[in-house]
Structures are given as C-alpha cells and as structure tokens.
C-alpha cells in the first residue's frame, strides 16, 4: 500500500501525464506507419527522454512500447499492410472486413482485443515479475551465464529467417559489447587506439543506425511511388454488441494467455505469438471456416496475443534484466541510462518504481482504447503521408538522437556506419533484434562466465554442478539440437 501511494505521488505530475498522452498517441501513430515498428518508435523517441525525470522518461517509453504494437493493426486493417510484423496475422481477417465496408467494426474488435490482451498480460506481469525477481536471488554466476545462453538461443530459434543467421546476429551483438575497456581489469581491447572506442560503442547510436538509418536506406533503395488504397466506407470506430463478444470470450482469453506465455520466453517476441495464437484459435473455433474472410475471431487471436506479449516480455526484462524482445532491449538500455537497474535490486530498493511501471502500463492500455476510438480518422490521414517526407523526418531525428546520447560527434558517424552495416545485414537476411539483445547482454554474459571461473578456480565443469544452471543448459542444448534432428528425420523420410 505504501508503494502504491509512493508510486501514485511520483506519477501525479504534469510531465508524467503529458508523457502518457504523447507516448500513447505517438506509439499508435508510428506503429500504424508500415515498416516503422516498435523498436524504431522507441529509438526515435529516446533522445527526448534524456533531460526528463527518470519516471517520466520510462513512462513515455512504456506507453510507446505498449501502444505501437496496437498501432500496427490499423494499417493492417485499412491498407492491407501491417504497420509492425506483429500485426501480420491481423491482415488476414481485418482487411477482408474493411473491404466489406466494416472497417469501423474491425477497428473496434482490434482495439478492444488489444486492450484486453495488454491488461491481461499486465496482471500476469504484476504476479510473476516480483516472484521471478525473488527467485533470481538463487542465481550465481553459473546460473546467470546459463540463463543468458538460454535467452540468446531462444532469440535465434524464433528469428525470422534461418536459425543460423539469428545466432550469428546474436554473436555479433555479443562481440560488439566487448569493444572498449574491460570492466574487470581496466585493460582496453579492440579499440585500436581510437579514443571513442575505448569507452565502448554507445548502444543507442548502434540502435539508431541498425534500426532507423538502415530502414531509411532500405526504403530509399526499394522505393516505388504508389497510391495507397484507403477508400473504405465507415472508417471510424464501432464496438460489436455484447452478444458477439460473449461468444468470443474464450478466444480472447486463449489468445491473451498464449501471447503472455510466449512473451515471457526471452527473445521470442510478438510475431511468433501472433501466429501461434491465430493457428490455435482457428483450430478450436466454431467459426473456423470463416477465418481469412473477415472473421472477428481471427482479429481477436492476433491482436489480443500481440498486445499480451508486451506484458509478458517485460517479465524477464524487469525481473532478470534479460530483454524479452527488441523493444524491451531498448527499454532495458533506457532504464540503465536513467539509473534504474532491473532485477531484485529494483524490487528491493525502489519498489515504488516497479509499482509505477505497472500503473503506467494499465493507464497506457486503457488510453490506447480511447486513442484508438477517437483517432481512427486521423490515422487514415497519417497513412496517406508521402513516404519520402516521413523518411526524411526519421533521418533528421536519427542524427539528432545519435548526437544527443553523449554529445559526441563521433557517435553520429558510428550510427551512420551502423546504418550501412544494417543494410548489408538486411540484404543477407540477418535479423536485427538479436544483435541488439546480444549487445545488451554481452557484458553480463562475460562477467558471469569470468566470475564463475574465478570462484571455481578455472573449472568450467563446475557450471554444470549447479542444478538450475544444469536445467537451463539442457533446455538450451535441446533447442539447438531440435532443428538439426528435425532436418535429419525429414531427410530420412
């Protein structure tokens, strides 16, 4: 109760209230713009948070994180193009419904399902995060090492494209974190006498380059002027009657549960959750034959699950400091910039911050509903904005963002180089998110390995004598071996 009062008093300021309003609106709009996505929305907003109070900064980013996933569904429904990969399954039923002249109803289903999914996962987050953080007290270096290894493997496993490329991306991210002064000995490494490298690469500059600038470059490389269709009748917002909702409560809960559980797995993200949920709801729905033709169950399956991932992905992020997806990796970086260290320390030292995060997420999810209901017409106009102008704005914001991280001009050049490298990676089909997550976890990974080796006098086998670590190692081995076994079996058949 004390925590609640302290959290409410922290949140009751004009700065925080503005952050909630701007964050939710901005997140929804950027999410709606095809190809922009959650990570890009967060990265572009980061420079604005540097001079804010830490609670306002986290509030802004949390609201963007929660609402951008929902925003992606608006373009999925209205122009047949998902704003974010997480909304890819929404296209399947949302767009046919819009073509029937029921865009308002489709937006109603999607907004309400998103809000429900977000709030559902928040409840799980409130219950699970403190428990998991307490459990993490049992974690020594061996367990931490095993957990990060497990997280990285999960990330690679569900990476879009091949597992090899996902793993490679994770490993590159881990290596990039190694550049600069070694925290344990103070010795410089891989800096090649370049002053700016001895302090390590700024995560935010790299994020800006990899996600924002490389997106700008790719769009420029593949830009073909086209007229987007958005001539639907009834672009607005309408909720279906209660009797329609009542028969779909099972799908709503089922999808939210799937989204939350998949979200908790480190690195899995909302895209995987959406398709698992869509397939499962379709399998169990009485209206399965209508799927793909504008069936509300399909919209619910996709939207409730992808928004439920937001709360789920925050569980390992807040409890263990292991990001659940690309978005939470950026959130993790932002938390650290503002002096908030996730994990049991957050629970013990600043429980009011954790409570504040829960309250903000609840408000963001409710506000998302209001923004969605009131802003449908506005979003349609935003979707008509010419792509070159939009990308020009992203470019300018990216340059500003890279500069304001440390006020160091070289960080801007690092971002540009990362942008070019990002284009190269995208052509190769190497996913970006594992690079960022690898970078966020690299130093922890090294520290836990070296501390473990120091405790055991250099005996790596001692890592396997810790029960929790052993279980995590076994699961990791199974995850790596599974696709190989599957491929081997398929070849045999």
């Amino acid at each position, binding site marked *: 109760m004390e925590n609640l009062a302290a959290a409410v008093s922290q949140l009751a300021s004009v700065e925080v209230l503005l952050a909630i309003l701007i964050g939710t609106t901005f997140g929804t709009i950027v999410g709606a713009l095809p190809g922009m996505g959650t990570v890009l929305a967060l990265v572009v907003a980061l*420079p*604005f948070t*540097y*001079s*804010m109070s830490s609670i306002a900064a986290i509030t802004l980013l949390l609201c963007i994180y929660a609402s951008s996933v929902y925003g992606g569904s608006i373009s999925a429904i209205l122009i047949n193009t998902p704003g974010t990969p997480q909304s890819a399954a929404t296209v399947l039923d949302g767009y046919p419904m819009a073509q029937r002249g029921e865009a308002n109803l489709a937006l109603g289903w999607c907004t309400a399902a998103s809000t429900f999914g977000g709030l559902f996962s928040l409840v799980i987050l409130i219950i699970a995060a403190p428990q998991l953080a307490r459990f993490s007290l049992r974690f020594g270096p061996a367990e931490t090492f095993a957990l990060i290894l497990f997280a990285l493997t999960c990330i690679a496993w569900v990476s879009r494209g*091949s597992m*090899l490329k996902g*793993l*490679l991306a994770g*490993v*590159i991210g881990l*290596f990039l974190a*190694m550049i600069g002064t*070694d925290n*344990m*000995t103070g*010795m410089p*490494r*891989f800096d090649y006498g370049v002053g700016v490298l001895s302090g390590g690469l700024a995560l935010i500059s790299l994020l800006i380059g990899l996600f924002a*600038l490389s997106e*700008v*470059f790719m*769009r*420029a*490389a*593949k*830009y*073909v*002027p086209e007229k987007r269709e958005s001539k639907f009748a009834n672009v607005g917002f309408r909720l279906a009657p209660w009797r329609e909702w009542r028969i779909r409560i099972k799908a709503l809960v089922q999808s939210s549960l799937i989204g939350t559980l998949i979200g908790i797995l480190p690195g899995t993200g909302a895209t995987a959750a959406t398709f698992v949920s869509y397939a499962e709801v379709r399998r169990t729905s009485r209206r399965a034959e209508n799927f793909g033709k504008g069936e509300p169950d399909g919209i619910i399956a996709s939207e409730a699950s992808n928004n439920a991932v937001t709360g789920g992905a925050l569980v390992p992020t807040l409890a263990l400091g292991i990001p659940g997806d690309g978005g939470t990796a950026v959130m993790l970086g932002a938390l650290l910039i503002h002096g908030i260290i996730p994990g049991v320390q957050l629970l013990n030292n600043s429980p009011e911050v954790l409570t504040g995060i829960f309250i903000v997420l609840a408000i963001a999810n409710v506000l998302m509903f209001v923004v969605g209901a009131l802003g449908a017409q506005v979003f349609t106009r935003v979707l008509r904005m*010419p*792509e*070159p*102008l939009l*990308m*020009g704005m992203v*470019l*300018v*914001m990216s*340059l*500003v963002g890279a*500069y*304001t991280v440390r006020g160091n*001009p070289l960080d*801007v*050049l690092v*971002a*540009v180089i990362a*942008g070019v490298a990002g284009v*190269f990676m995208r*052509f*190769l*089909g190497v996913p970006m998110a594992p690079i960022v997550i690898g970078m966020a976890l690299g130093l922890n*990974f*090294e520290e836990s390995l*070296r501390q473990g*080796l*120091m*405790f*055991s006098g*250099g005996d790596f086998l001692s890592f396997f004598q810790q029960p929790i670590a052993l279980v995590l190692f076994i699961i990791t081995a199974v995850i790596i071996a599974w696709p190989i076994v599957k491929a081997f079996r398929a070849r045999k058949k």
Partner: protein
Amino acid sequence: MSMNPVRIGALALFLIAALLFASSFAMNVGEPMFGDVSTVFVPRIFLIAWMVLAALIAIVAGRDREAGSIFAGVAWRRLWIIIAIVAVAAVAMMEIGFVFACLPAFIVFVTVFGYRRYGVTIVVGALFVFALWALFLEVFRLPLPISPWFGTL
C-alpha cells in the same frame, strides 16, 4: 562452389571476424589474476562462434534458391547517393550546426528519394527542422550543434 550474394556476404563476415580474431593476439592484455581468464578470452569465443556460423551460412547458401535474388529491385544509385547525403549531413552538422546541415540534407534527401513537390518539401523540412531545434533548445535544454555564425542557431 558457385557464388551468390549471400555466400559472398557470409564469407565477408567470416573475413571480418578472422581479422578481428587475428588482431586480438597483437593486443596488450596483461596477465590474468585470481583464476581469471585473459581479457580477450570471451571476445575470442564470440569471434570463433562468429566465424563458424558465417562459414555454415556460406555453405548453406549454395542450396538457397532465393539467395541469388536478394538484390532484386534495388535502386543502387539512389541508395549510394542517399548514404552519401546522410554521411555528409552527419559531418556537416558538426561544422555548420544542426539547422544549416539538416535542412538542406532533408530537402536533397526527399528529392533524391523520389518526391517531386518541392514547395511542400521545403515547407515541411523547414518547419520540422526548426521545430526540433527549438524543442531541444527551449524545452529539453539539450543544445544541438550550432553554426559559427548565428549564436544558438
């Protein structure tokens, strides 16, 4: 061994990792103490994993039928010009300030991108760049790079 863009890219990544790995032996890393490992021990593990994975991708790329078409529809000239604009803007920002570097960069960028309504481009660019400059200077109190000519501008 047939070469396709993915295989060439994977081999390039392999080469980068190999060079980084080789350079780690020329570093002054000191003597590890208290059972600790060398300061480049963990980075070397990552680099070995990087090389192995890049090599595997290069091998698998031979069976990938889509590997040859990854550059389909890419406007190379536009891409390189855009990269050059961004690089010049990044350097110019430090010399002539945010506004004087980013406003022309925005206009040239949007034009090269393929948008031909110049009036709209100039108005939107000017409004956006000045609004951003004012926001950072007045609200966030984070001054952006300034020109040598007009005080805070």
